[in-house]
């Protein structure tokens, strides 16, 4: 596996730490969250294996290219369109969550329009960038922000504010039957690598997914799930954790570094994770944009100006929808719709894998 695939995977795991997934876990904390997460862990590794293996035969080709080579237009266009919507919503969900968090914790006096307006240029620029540059940005942010983010997360494990008794109580619920929503939310953490349906066109080396890669994904996932679920419980207590809107924000606000540069860890934490979230939105929307462009056949357009114009149209539509939903949606709606969104993930995954199976067969014959 190329190192960029790991980067994509980790960035998705990290961005989800403060988005909607912890809340969904905690809502089901007495109804089988733990056992589901263990199942999801194995399924997540399987997902990544299936993805990498199915793309193995097509190094240097993105999904739209592969599909247009082997399948008819009648299947390709709807498939790409649906995938585009899924990727767009994934970015949108992160965007709404982060705008909400920014307004609540960092800049409570700012107008919501201004906050969205600040996101627009940066993300738009990212979306229309070349795919190659996106990957380099990803690597850069990783080098700059990720060590610090990892430092803070590891620090949490040794903080005296974490009460391991509460973690122990959470673990006593291990015998409950699994829950579908928790399952889909947990496997979404592993969905980062699926961005290669576009970025595969840049990964020219043949990728393999053996025991080593499986173990890396397994341990990354186990660490991400454990941290996402248990650390907030240790800090905020098990009994009422499901009532908290943003468990991870409150958790980072409860951590104190006595002689750190800033005593309140939350500010550093928010900024770091904001950088990673920005990146995550950019990547997802870039993928969505590319998928839509292929679905509408923009790449085959003759005139350069026309191509640009349609690109701008796509971005405009992205932002119009984003503006509308961000202003309209309440926190409860977000939680509610996120659940529906996560619940569709396995179906999309199966659909994509069936397509890839067909394509692989046709490529062989």
């Amino acid at each position: 596996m190329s190192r960029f695939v790991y980067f994509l995977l980790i960035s998705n795991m990290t961005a989800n730490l403060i988005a909607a997934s912890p809340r969904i876990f905690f809502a089901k904390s007495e109804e089988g969250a733990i056992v589901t997460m263990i199942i999801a862990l194995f399924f997540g590794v399987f997902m990544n294996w299936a993805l990498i293996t199915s793309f193995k035969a097509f190094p240097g080709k993105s999904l739209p290219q592969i599909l247009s080579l082997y399948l008819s237009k009648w299947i390709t266009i709807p498939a790409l369109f649906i995938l585009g919507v899924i990727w767009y919503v994934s970015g949108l969900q992160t965007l709404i969550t982060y705008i909400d968090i920014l307004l609540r914790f960092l800049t409570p006096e700012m107008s919501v329009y201004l906050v969205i307006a600040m996101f627009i240029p940066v993300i738009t620029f990212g979306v229309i960038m070349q795919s190659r540059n996106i990957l380099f940005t990803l690597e850069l942010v990783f080098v700059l922000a990720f060590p610090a983010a990892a430092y803070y997360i590891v620090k949490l494990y040794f903080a005296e504010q974490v009460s391991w008794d509460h973690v122990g109580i959470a673990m006593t619920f291990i015998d409950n039957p699994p829950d579908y929503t928790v399952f889909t939310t947990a496997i979404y953490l592993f969905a980062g690598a699926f961005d290669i349906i576009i970025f595969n066109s840049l990964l020219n080396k043949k990728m393999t997914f053996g025991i080593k890669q499986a173990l890396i994904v397994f341990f990354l996932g186990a660490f991400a799930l454990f941290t996402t679920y248990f650390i907030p419980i240790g800090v905020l207590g098990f009994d009422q954790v499901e009532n908290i809107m943003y468990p991870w924000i409150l958790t980072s606000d409860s951590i104190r570094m006595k002689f750190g540069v800033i005593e309140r860890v939350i500010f550093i934490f928010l900024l770091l994770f904001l950088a990673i979230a920005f990146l995550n939105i950019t990547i997802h929307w870039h993928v969505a944009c590319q998928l839509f462009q292929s679905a509408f056949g923009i790449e085959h357009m003759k005139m350069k100006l026309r191509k640009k114009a349609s690109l701008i149209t796509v971005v405009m539509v992205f932002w119009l929808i984003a503006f509308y939903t961000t202003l309209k949606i309440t926190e409860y709606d977000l939680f509610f719709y996120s659940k529906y969104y996560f619940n569709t993930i396995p179906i999309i995954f199966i659909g994509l894998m069936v397509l890839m199976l067909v394509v692989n067969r046709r490529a062989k014959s």
Partner: protein
Amino acid sequence: MKFLSVSKWFMVVLCMSGLLLQYGCAFKDIDKRLFVSAIGIDPAENVENGYKVTLKVALPFGAIKDSPKPSFAYLSREGHSIGEAIRMLETHVDKVLELGHMKTIVVHEKLLRDDMQSFMDYFIRRGDIELIAYVAGARPSAETILKVEPDTEAPASVSLINFFGATANDSPYVVTTYLFELRRDILSDGINAVVPLIETNEKGDELIVNNSVVVDGREDPAVLSTIETKYFNSLLKHSTGFTYLVKEGSLELLLQISQSKMTYKFVPNKGNTAPHAIDMHIWMKGTIGEASKDLSIARLDEYNEVASKEVKQKVVHFLTKMQEENLDPFGFGLRYRTTRLHTEDVFTSWQKAYPDIEFKVTVDVKLQGTGTIE
């Protein structure tokens, strides 16, 4: 030569057009804000079931040289809820009240009950109040405590902050309770929250923190004495640097403990799920700080034994006292809940078992020396 492509020009214009919407800096300057350094909450005198909120506001001054004493303003207001009172207080000053730097919440002793979560709610719900703010009880009232300006208070600082969090004062008699910790402990079954109690002397120029209060549902919250507070801190919070006075016959020893560790486990009852005893083991390491007689290094083992016996007696006394009051500041119930798979009656069976539980304490004091003299 084409300088920039169309889409890039478009982007530049888009970014620049954002500037047209601005008409200057949108943020309020620092001189337009008042920084609240502490909040005091008392029961209201005139409003039924209401609260009296007192704010300690730090006043700005030009340079530290100009101001020998820190200067504060105090604002008070009664209201049905904390939020309402603070909203009304905003109309009493010409500037914005900034709560983001508020570090201490002082609550009247009588309000330290379980229903305090109803007003703590306001502090948690607001995003700008830090969850690592300290919470403390106050005697005789929060307002009096806030208005104390100790002689040792330096300009541009607040004494109330320095007491807690082990940044300045590191005494084992001072319990530190953070806001998030208080919320967690109040809302959890099987543990009682403990908050420090701030008192003042008769002249009103000193703050004294060496007792603590166990928060429970009762009207009159149980106050831990100075000694009990010290044991609580040393056994549970691993605070260092405390001393124990041990007496045996004519020998008086002052132990200086540098490390202490406590572990415990439940001794299960035969045939019954609930435990009948708690097996507690305490290790302590330290030196002798003061003695009434000449000491000999060779007899350290003997002193160890004397000390162990004394510490054990005090710990058992403290534990049984808490048990008699049906309080659980150590969180035994919480730990018990982790020891078996969850069923409905784990906690109820613990509640039934706790009043009759037996404490088997073993103490290992290991003295490493007699100080600088024998």
